[in-house]
């Protein structure tokens, strides 16, 4: 087990720089998820930690040792790939023992460690099968078993669940999480799925365009996004973002959307009237107001999901999504009156940075 220190790591392919000085400190035993849209550099960063990509600038340290110039096998890491990357000509047992075989481990030791890992993952009856005889979930487990057998200091996962169907993905998510609890090995997990990030991570690193947008615990990112990007990326449905400007025409500071709809502000906010900004509010912080009071919204779609109802509506010309715990029997084009929790509002400047 070890901590991982990424200090101003840069990666460039020729003149194209894909990582612009990323710094993240990962504590010993922590489960950290790198999340972001495709092309944000999260997989590249993971591959740099693994040693599969050169590091153009900065340093990466594992367990207090700078590993920039070390080969993957000297870094004491193991990696689970998106498409499993099982050796097709080897049985499950041989796949899992391959790293030990290469290291010249004695046969008894190999058998013992493979048996242990197989036990943990429920692979014992499958040890003599070939990868082609396994289902997707089983292959994924073998790939994890191959990692466990090595007892590495750091586990690296590169979108390991994206090839599985939705149901299996949820099951494997829980399995990986409980595996981490059991082994307490430092884990770095890459995904583009924010739900995976939210449910699995001790801390999330949100990346965008080769930069780290924000690092924090899942609910801290959800409640307190430092940028519009994080606000939109974390949470599903994502945060509503309404364009407008500050106004004090009604005697107290309010926010007026571009269409002239007045929205409440938290008491502490006082910005010069006329400053442009973006008003962010999560769907669940809306409540239904009595007709004639609050914010009028024209319904576009009503989606009953069972435990809650999701309503898409337009406020002025801008679309908002609201979630209600009650069931709603309204039709498109009807007007619904909304109230919102002003203390939950996030305000962003026009560059997308958090203001309050």
């Amino acid at each position, binding site marked *: 087990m070890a901590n991982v220190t990424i200090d101003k790591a840069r990666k460039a392919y020729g003149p194209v720089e894909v990582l612009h000085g990323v710094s993240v400190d990962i504590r010993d035993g922590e489960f950290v998820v790198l999340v972001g849209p495709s092309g944000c550099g999260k997989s590249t960063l993971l591959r740099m930690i*693994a*040693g*599969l990509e050169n590091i153009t600038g900065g340093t990466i340290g594992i367990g207090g040792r700078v590993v920039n110039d070390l*080969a*993957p*096998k000297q870094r004491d*890491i*193991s*990696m689970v*790939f*998106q*498409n*499993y*990357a*099982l*050796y*097709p*000509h080897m049985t499950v047992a041989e796949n899992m023992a*391959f*790293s030990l075989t*290469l*290291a010249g481990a004695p046969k008894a030791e190999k058998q013992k460690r493979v048996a242990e890992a197989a036990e943990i993952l429920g692979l014992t009856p499958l040890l003599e099968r*070939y*990868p*082609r*005889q*396994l289902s*997707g979930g089983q*292959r994924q487990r073998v790939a994890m078993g*191959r990692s466990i057998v*090595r007892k590495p200091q750091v586990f690296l996962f590169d979108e390991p669940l994206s*090839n599985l169907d939705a149901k299996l993905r949820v099951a494997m998510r829980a399995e990986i999480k409980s595996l981490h609890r059991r082994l307490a090995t430092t884990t770095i997990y890459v995904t583009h799925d924010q739900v995976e990030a939210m449910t699995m991570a001790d801390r999330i690193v949100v990346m965008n365009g080769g930069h780290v947008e924000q690092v924090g615990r899942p609910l801290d990112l959800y409640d307190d996004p430092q940028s519009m990007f994080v606000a939109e990326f974390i949470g599903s449905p994502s945060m509503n973002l309404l364009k407008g400007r500050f106004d004090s025409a009604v005697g107290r500071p309010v926010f007026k959307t571009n269409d002239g709809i007045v929205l409440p502000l938290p008491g502490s906010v006082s910005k010069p009237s006329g400053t442009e900004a973006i008003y962010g509010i999560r769907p669940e912080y809306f409540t239904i107001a009595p007709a004639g009071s609050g914010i009028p919204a024209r319904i576009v779609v009503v989606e009953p999901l069972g435990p809650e109802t999701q309503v898409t509506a337009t406020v002025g010309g801008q679309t908002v999504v609201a979630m209600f715990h009650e069931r709603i029997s309204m039709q498109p084009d009807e007007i619904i009156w909304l109230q919102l929790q002003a203390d939950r509002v996030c305000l962003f400047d026009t560059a997308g940075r958090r203001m309050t």
Partner: protein
Amino acid sequence: MSLVESRLTLTVSYVLLGLFAFIALFPIALLVLNSLKPAAEIVQNPLGLPGPIRWQNFVNAWNHAKFSKTFVNSLVVSGTTIVLVCSTSSLTAYVLARKKIKSWKIFTFYLLATTTAPIQLYIFPLYFGFAKLGLINNIFGVALIYTALYSPFAVMLLRTYFIAVPKELEEAAIVDGATSWQVFWRVMLPIVSPGILTVALIIGLNSWNEFLIATTFLQKQENVTAVIAFYLLSGQYSSDWGEIMAAALIIVVPVVLLFVFMQKRFIEGMAGGSVKG
């Protein structure tokens, strides 16, 4: 497109396929038939069934063509060629498929270009070169020529096999602690083994059947390959056609057997299951 073909289409297909099968198999049937007849009967009635079956043709063929010796020569030449081509081409193909070599296009073009040059163009300079080196009548020398001749094809074919292997498999092996050689030897080579088998089969067939180079470079009786020994059976003034047919059959048998046995592994894909599929 409907998956069930109409009756007419099926009929036409089967008639055509039957015709092709007949064209392909008729000469072989004729060969088998006539290998069991005395020479005189072949000339009189080439299409008829043999009267008394004459096994003696095979005995004569075996003895006159010295197959006990020339077969071994053929096996040595083909085997050496297969080993040399497979080992060198698989290494070359792996490098061309994976490592980013700037000049690989030029190299590939060079490989393709060499396959288009006819043997006649360079057989004389090659002969004199080999004569200087004392490699005439050396069956390993011939294997060396075959290796040079068949390598471009083998490299091009194997390269496509290597390209089809997902890159993650190599990366997984590297993370598992494999050296470049171990990645090649323990991961890549077993996965592309169907390709190597295909190459071995094609190269084996070609070198077994090759005539021009073998007849040019192997001149002593005890060094010739089976195909040349077969050719030498037809005399200038008289030929025992029964014996020649029997000899042809003897030469063809190992090739057919090889194909029949290897066919299954030939088709069988090893890559299934390595990645989601």
